[in-house]
């Protein structure tokens, strides 16, 4: 059952009617007095009774907020016949009521409140009707059509003074019911319906009906259109031209009276008042109604009389109907109803859309209250609901200073979601979860952004911290203090820091992160990110002051990560005076490990060729070494030394004297001193340390080999090796084993010696056998060198010879320069006799030859 289209409101109660008929103190009569017929026009109500009375009431209508109340005022009553009145019709233009009683029409004058004696009575009348559409007719008169008990209808034009007979029209059968619209009378004959044009007297047959099985009725529903009782209780629409333009409606059996209140057809049978929607031919409403007599429409309401009393069917305001439909989940129907109602009221499309949206929104809230979340979301979304309206259902989610007030009239009756869930925790969780989904799925308008973001932030902070950051990082516009308070309350410190970061309040956000790093406050969402996250953020900040302020937090926790902040900045090429390498180094002095890392990065990875960096790194290495020494950590010392030595060997940029000054103070750093002496070109000092102090003969040898690679001339190389040889020999005097080293050195294929000098240096008592290999090699290489030199000399001579030959042959040829000869380079004529002949034979200007 669809929602109601009409409310049944009592208009005239039985008790009042009886009292009015019989007088206040009358005894109950044995004969019941019943209503037989009635008519109403504007406020006038005329009732015909079984005992031949006509009673006139004025009906006052009062509207309260909730409903309509009718109050009846008796105007007069008159017994006009002894028999029941069959039909009464009030004709206001003529101040007359036409009464049909016992086959006779009599005219009742309402001003005198008595039967009009001047009018004739019409006898043998079956029924009559008043023209319901006067279009084209006389403005002063009213046409009345009388169906006689013979085979014709009579047409009269009536005024207050007289009835003017217009014409009679013959019919093929006896008429049973008539209804008139403009110039057409629709007549139900004995077996069929016909339309009679009263001007041309032309008959149009509509259709036949079964006069035994069917109850005929003729109801004018629109200009030029009637609604007729067809076979099998089918109500059929037909125009005056006999065309059916609307689909038929299946009525209840025994329907005998009809009324039309667009778009509804109201029907009456012995038990029910049934309302049909003419647009979809569906039954809209059914009311039990016993002993119904007839229906009369009057403006937008329909009066229905039973034998006992009279009611009004007051149309339920369409908004109410819509609400009713919505409660029944008939959203489609509600929208259609609204559409029809609004089309009728002639509103513009945009106004209608607005209404449509409100209905959708209402539907959405109703579905929500029933936990039909999918539908709710869909309706609210399509209806373009103000998202704050939804959020406001959930207490405390709107931002604290929100300007939002719920729409008037309200879209729903709920104070908040608790009223819906009635404290059911599970349901309320579901609602909240839906809200999150809903808000996420809808694009919010500018005006809503603040509240929507705040609400989502609050929801995420409480339930889904994982989504919090995404929200805060993508154009978050929530309320500031609300955001800060909420995030603090729920301990979402990392999110709070991110929020501050987004809000460009970096100082605050860094403070929070440093507290998180120092474990002063806890937030599980920060734990997996930890120090490296903070260092990344710091590294990316453009504000050097902030970086320097908060860097110590990171540096203390992890010097490498801390140093990486600076190395990354250096690599990314961000130019900043306060963070150039020099000041960074100065800043990092407090953090030796980080400083080492930073310098290593500058020098080794970034390959910065700046003396101070290299020197500083060497010094730092030394410092580290000293501190390791103090700790007596042998493994560490070993690794640090290796590092230092390899650096000292590889780098050429550091200040040797500076480092040497530092190294020479400590005896245990002799190897380093040796390397440094080597760097300084002080080979003998280096070798002396290696041989005399360290007794590292292999090292000394390889030192020489390495150093010799840097020397340009053979003599220098020889001198280097001779120095070493000299040192060896000076030691070999008291150490037999040194001889072995001497021989090894001499036999080293990379060593370079002047054999003659060596022969001088070698003590005389050494056996030839010892030196034979060296000597052999020396002789061989000398021979080789000599031969090489000879070949080179011969080749050079040959070159000279060829050049000489060319020179001679060139000198023997002549070049003639004529006036029209052009330079082969610039293609201009020669203006003077000087020219250049190039190696390839081209003759050009002197100036051209230069270029």
């Amino acid at each position, binding site marked *: 059952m669809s929602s109601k289209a009409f409310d049944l409101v009592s208009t005239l109660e039985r008790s009042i009617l009886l009292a009015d008929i019989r007088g206040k103190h009358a005894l109950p009569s044995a004969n019941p007095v019943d209503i037989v017929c009635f008519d109403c026009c504007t406020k006038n109500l005329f009732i015909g009774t079984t005992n031949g009375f006509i009673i006139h009431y004025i009906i006052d209508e009062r509207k309260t907020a909730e409903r309509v109340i009718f109050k009846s005022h008796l105007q007069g009553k008159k017994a006009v016949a002894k028999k029941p009145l069959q039909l009464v019709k009030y004709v206001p233009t003529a101040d007359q009521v036409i009464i049909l009683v016992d086959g006779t029409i009599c005219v009742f004058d309402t001003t005198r409140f008595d039967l009009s004696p001047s009018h004739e009575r019409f006898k043998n009348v079956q029924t009559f009707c008043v023209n319901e559409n006067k279009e084209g007719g006389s403005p002063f008169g009213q046409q009345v059509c009388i169906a006689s008990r013979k085979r014709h209808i009579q047409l009269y034009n009536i005024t207050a003074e007289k009835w003017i007979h217009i014409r009679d029209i013959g019919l093929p059968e006896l008429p049973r019911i008539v209804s008139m619209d403009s110039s057409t009378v629709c007549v139900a004959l004995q077996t*069929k319906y016909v339309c009679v044009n009263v001007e041309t007297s032309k008959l149009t*047959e*509509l*259709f*036949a*009906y079964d006069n035994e099985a069917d109850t005929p009725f003729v109801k004018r529903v629109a200009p030029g259109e009637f609604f007729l009782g*067809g*076979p*099998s209780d*089918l109500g*059929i629409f*037909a125009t005056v*031209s*006999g*065309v*059916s*333009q609307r*689909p*038929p409606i*299946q009525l209840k059996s025994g329907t005998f009276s009809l009324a039309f209140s667009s778009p509804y057809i109201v029907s009456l049978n012995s038990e029910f008042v049934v309302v049909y929607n003419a647009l979809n*031919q569906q039954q809209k409403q059914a009311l039990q109604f016993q002993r119904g007599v007839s229906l009369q429409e009057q403006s937008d309401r329909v009066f229905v009389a039973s034998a006992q009393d009279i009611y009004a069917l007051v149309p339920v305001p369409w908004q109410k109907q819509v609400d009713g439909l919505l409660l029944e989940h008939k959203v489609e129907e509600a929208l259609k109803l609204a559409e029809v109602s609004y089309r009728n009221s002639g509103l513009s499309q945009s106004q209608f859309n607005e209404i449509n949206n409100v209905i959708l929104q209402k539907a959405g809230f109703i579905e929500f209250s029933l936990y039909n979340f999918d539908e709710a979301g869909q309706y609210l979304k399509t209806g373009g609901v103000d998202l704050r309206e939804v959020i406001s259902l959930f207490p405390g989610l709107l931002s604290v200073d929100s300007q939002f007030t719920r729409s008037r009239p309200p879209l729903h009756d709920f104070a908040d979601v608790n009223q819906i869930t009635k404290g059911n925790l599970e349901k309320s969780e579901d609602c909240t979860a839906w809200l999150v989904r809903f808000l996420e799925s809808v694009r919010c308008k500018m005006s809503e952004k603040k509240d929507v973001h705040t609400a989502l932030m609050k929801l995420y902070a409480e339930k889904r911290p994982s989504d919090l950051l995404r929200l805060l990082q993508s154009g978050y516009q929530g309320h500031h203090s609300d955001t800060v308070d909420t995030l603090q309350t729920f301990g979402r410190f990392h999110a709070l820091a991110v929020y501050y970061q987004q809000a460009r309040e970096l100082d605050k956000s860094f403070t929070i992160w440093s507290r998180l790093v120092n474990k002063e406050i806890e937030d599980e969402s920060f734990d997996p990110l930890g120090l490296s996250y903070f260092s990344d953020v710091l590294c990316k900040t453009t504000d050097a002051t902030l970086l320097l302020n908060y860097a110590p937090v990171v540096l203390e926790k992890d010097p490498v990560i801390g140093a990486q902040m600076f190395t990354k900045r250096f690599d990314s090429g961000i130019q900043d005076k306060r963070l150039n390498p020099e000041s960074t180094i100065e800043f990092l002095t407090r953090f030796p490990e980080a400083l080492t890392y930073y310098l290593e990065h500058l020098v080794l990875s970034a390959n910065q060729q700046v003396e101070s960096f290299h020197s500083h790194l060497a010094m730092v290495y030394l410092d580290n070494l000293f501190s390791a020494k103090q700790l007596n950590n042998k493994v560490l010392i070993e690794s640090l030394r290796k590092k230092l030595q390899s650096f000292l060997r590889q780098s050429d940029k550091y200040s040797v004297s500076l480092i040497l000054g530092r190294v020479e103070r400590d005896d245990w750093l002799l190897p380093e001193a040796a390397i440094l002496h080597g760097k300084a070109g002080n080979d003998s000092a280096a070798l002396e340390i290696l041989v005399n102090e360290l007794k590292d003969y292999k090292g000394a040898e390889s030192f020489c080999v390495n150093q010799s690679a840097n020397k340009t001339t053979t003599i220098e190389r020889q001198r280097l090796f001779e120095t070493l040889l000299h040192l060896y020999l000076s030691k070999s005097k008291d150490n037999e084993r040194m001889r072995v080293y001497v021989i090894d050195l001499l036999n080293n294929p990379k060593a370079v010696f002047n054999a003659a000098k060596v022969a001088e240096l070698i003590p005389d008592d050494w056996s030839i056998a010892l030196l034979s290999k060296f000597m052999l090699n020396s002789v061989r290489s000398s021979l080789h060198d000599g031969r090489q030199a000879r070949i080179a000399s011969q080749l050079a001579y040959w070159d000279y010879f060829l050049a000489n030959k060319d020179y001679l042959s060139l000198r023997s040829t002549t070049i003639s320069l004529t006036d029209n000869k052009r330079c082969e380079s610039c293609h201009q004529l020669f203006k003077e006799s000087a020219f250049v002949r190039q190696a390839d034979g081209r003759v050009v200007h002197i100036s051209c030859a230069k270029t």
Partner: protein
Amino acid sequence: MSSRRKVLLKVIILGDSGNQYKATIGADFLTKEVMVDDRLVTMQIWDTAGQERFQSLGVAFYRGADCCVLVFDVTMPNTFKTLDSWRDEFLIQASPRDPENFPFVVIGNKIDLDNRATVAKNALAQESEADNYNEFPTAITLNKQENTNSKGGCSC
């Protein structure tokens, strides 16, 4: 605006359905809006009841029709044979102004049950070759619709 001008086109569907799956009460009714040359045409399609007790209503329903669709069931040869009488019935009841040129459309329905349609096909071939359908003055569309039901098969 001419494009918004509404034109009403009343279409009547007639014919016996082979297997009665649901008897129409009075008339089934549907509307379909189509654009024809910039004009919005509302087709009002009346599927009237064939039962005897509703026969009398034909006159009201058929009147004012702009087109009549005669439908038969390809699996039931008889439904095709009765089209003649339906056409006559229509012309009598609707009494169109120019009955000679009134547009009729013939639709063979339920072609999806083609495997059972051999008899009907033969009948159709014979009928249309041999006799009265050639005498039809109006254009006959033997709309052996590819679509499987009559809803999509309407064309005028």
